[in-house]
């Protein structure tokens, strides 16, 4: 179904599907019963040395987003402005949301905060978070 991802383990795939279903059903429940979804939704990739994180933040400028890192905790916050309407404008339909958001996640390892790269392109934020040097696993060689 998702050919772009390298074959993940079946359990990870099940987890992902569960989250996706929860999100999907949340969209159709009456507003008052909804749980506030975590915003923004994040996609995370990792290897031994770094983590790549992506979030869709349409309509936000790089300056509108605040990224802070404390060891292995990453906090993303920002504000999406309400559309500035000219006078006498009336809405026929409003589906896009606006307001403030904050989201924190715990990363799998300590991050070298000075070497984090953040880019924003077409409303998609990409963060590359390298693992802190002191946190990297050490190879121990066996002496003969």
């Amino acid at each position, binding site marked *: 179904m998702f050919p772009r*991802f390298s074959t993940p383990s079946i359990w990870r795939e099940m987890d992902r599907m569960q*989250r996706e279903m929860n999100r999907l059903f949340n969209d159709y429940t009456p507003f008052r019963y909804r749980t506030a979804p975590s915003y923004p*939704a994040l*996609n995370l990739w990792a290897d031994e040395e770094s983590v790549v994180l992506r979030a869709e933040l349409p309509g936000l400028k790089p300056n509108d987003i605040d990224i802070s890192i404390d060891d292995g905790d990453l906090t993303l916050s920002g504000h999406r402005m309400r559309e500035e309407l000219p006078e006498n*404008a009336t809405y026929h339909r409003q*589906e*896009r949301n606006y307001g403030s958001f904050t989201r924190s996640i715990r990363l799998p390892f300590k991050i070298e905060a000075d070497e984090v790269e953040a880019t924003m392109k077409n409303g998609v934020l990409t963060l590359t978070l390298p693992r802190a040097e002191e946190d990297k696993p050490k190879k121990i060689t066996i002496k003969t």
Partner: protein
Amino acid sequence: MTEETKAMEVQEQERVPEERTERMRDKACYLPQSDIYETEENYHLVLDMPGVDEKSIDITLEKNILTINGFTDVDAPKGYSLARAEYNIGDYERSFRLTDQIDRENIEASYEDGVLRLTLPKAEEAKARKITVKTT
């Protein structure tokens, strides 16, 4: 008053009956979240389409159906394995049915920071007019 209700017909139509060929892209396709608002001169359409390249956006107006297509080209970073996925990447497609009260020749579109904005000017005859009462 009749003027008012007519103007409200710029409503979205969820799915246009298929006349074209089937989609052949191996990707999910989403309805972008949209706002529609009206000012004295124009109708405005605002669509969230993050991850789309400006050049890949395709806007067509056939008869009175305005169709917006956006194709994403965001690939997973190479050499990494997926650790957590909360959203899925896909293309965008949405159609709207327009009334006759739109000046078709002068529809404008702009794309910035993942947001597509369309300005649909009202046709001359659809604009609100002030009628002054003459006194004799």
